[in-house]
């Protein structure tokens, strides 16, 4: 129990620093950035109470906002992703996830990919709509969501493969 809590706190701090100091400055092709920190919300234990998930997601988003001078954009996006997380878990892994402890690394790759994709794209869509905040630029929102979403998903899958092996 304690080691799991410690692991999550370490992951939180590490992801915030990595995101704020490195990943937000990549600007691939001028505007494509990966938002790897969503991984924290994705990897929170599946049986954690939704209230806690929502609260942790809010804190996470607010930390990124402080780095990015973006008001509450990341906080809102994380909140929506965290609120919809139970639905997405159910959709991707079937209805049994709540009853036993679901281990992400024991699930089939396709189900995991589906879950990651859903979380990332919901988060990115909210993020860019609020960041741009202008109905005239709806195409820009969709373009950014698509390309940054692909980048983030790839990075998340790589991270999961890379660090998933060690803990087995």
């Amino acid at each position, binding site marked *: 129990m304690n080691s799991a809590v410690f692991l999550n706190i370490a992951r939180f701090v590490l992801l915030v620093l990595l995101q*704020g*100091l490195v990943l937000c400055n990549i600007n691939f092709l001028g505007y494509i950035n990966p938002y790897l920190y969503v991984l924290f919300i994705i990897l929170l234990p599946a049986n954690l109470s939704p209230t806690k998930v*929502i609260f942790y997601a*809010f804190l996470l988003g607010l930390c990124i906002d402080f780095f990015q001078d973006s008001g509450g954009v990341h906080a809102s996006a994380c*909140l929506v992703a965290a*609120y919809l997380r139970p639905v997405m878990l159910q959709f991707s892994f079937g209805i049994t996830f709540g009853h036993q402890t679901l281990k992400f690394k024991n699930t089939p790759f396709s189900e995991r990919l589906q879950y990651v994709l859903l979380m990332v794209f919901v988060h990115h869509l909210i993020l860019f709509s609020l960041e741009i905040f202008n109905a005239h630029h709806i195409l*820009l929102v969709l373009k950014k969501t698509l390309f940054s979403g692909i980048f983030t998903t790839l990075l998340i899958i790589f991270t999961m493969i890379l660090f998933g092996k060690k803990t087995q």
Partner: protein
Amino acid sequence: MQQIFNFLIRHKNTIFFLLLLSVSLFLTVQSHSYHKSKFVSSTNFLTGGLYDWMNDMGSYLHLREYNDRLVEENEYLRSLLFNENIEDSVIVKTDSTSFSGPFSVVSAKVISNNYSKTDNYLLLDRGKNEGIKADLGVITNNGIVGIVEETTKNFSRVLSILNSNSAINVRLKKSNHYGTLVWNGKNPNLVQLTYVPKIANVQKGDTVITGGKSFVFPEGIPVGIVHDFQLGKNESYYDIDIQLFNDMTNIGHVYVIENKNKQEFSKLNSSDDE
């Protein structure tokens, strides 16, 4: 009563979610309005310090380039000095603080720079301690960068010209036609000049400089050149794309300019022209 409590308990997640969401949406809306985003800002001790530390390590990579820029600027200033025949006594030992004109200049280093969003900010490593205040102009040797929006003791946040809230008074160098510099959020090297009347004779390659109407920037600071232009929808103003002289994606050292006559000016003229 029982039912109300049951309802609250059953929907506690949704209620909690909506509560936090309204907080973050409030912060978001606040960040999109000029001069109001005060709560969430990277000028605080922690993020400012972290950016400062990161920049300390990264700045070595750019030393050669920044040196070249400095030499270039010195060369330009030297050639100005020699051609103006200013007496030596004036040149020697007048540093920026003892200079008696209306403008004073403080140098600062950019420690965090955004340009990929539609509302971009820069963070400088100087703040109130060095005399930087809100509403001062920020430039480099190549051109304008933005306007200081908020300062703390050691850091200040600059509203970049690559921000949808930015509107800066500029004019065409050759013809004195004024316009407003805005950004459409697309390309960090192209900004838009609006409200230039149809009567102005605009050509591709024309230089655009600051207008000096607002007293934030001194008159005549270079901005960019006309990249492309067309008549706007109502056919009385031009929509002009300006190619910036500054590379907004790579800014090292900047100068913060204070106009000491500004307060006097703003007392007389309360228009909100930037």
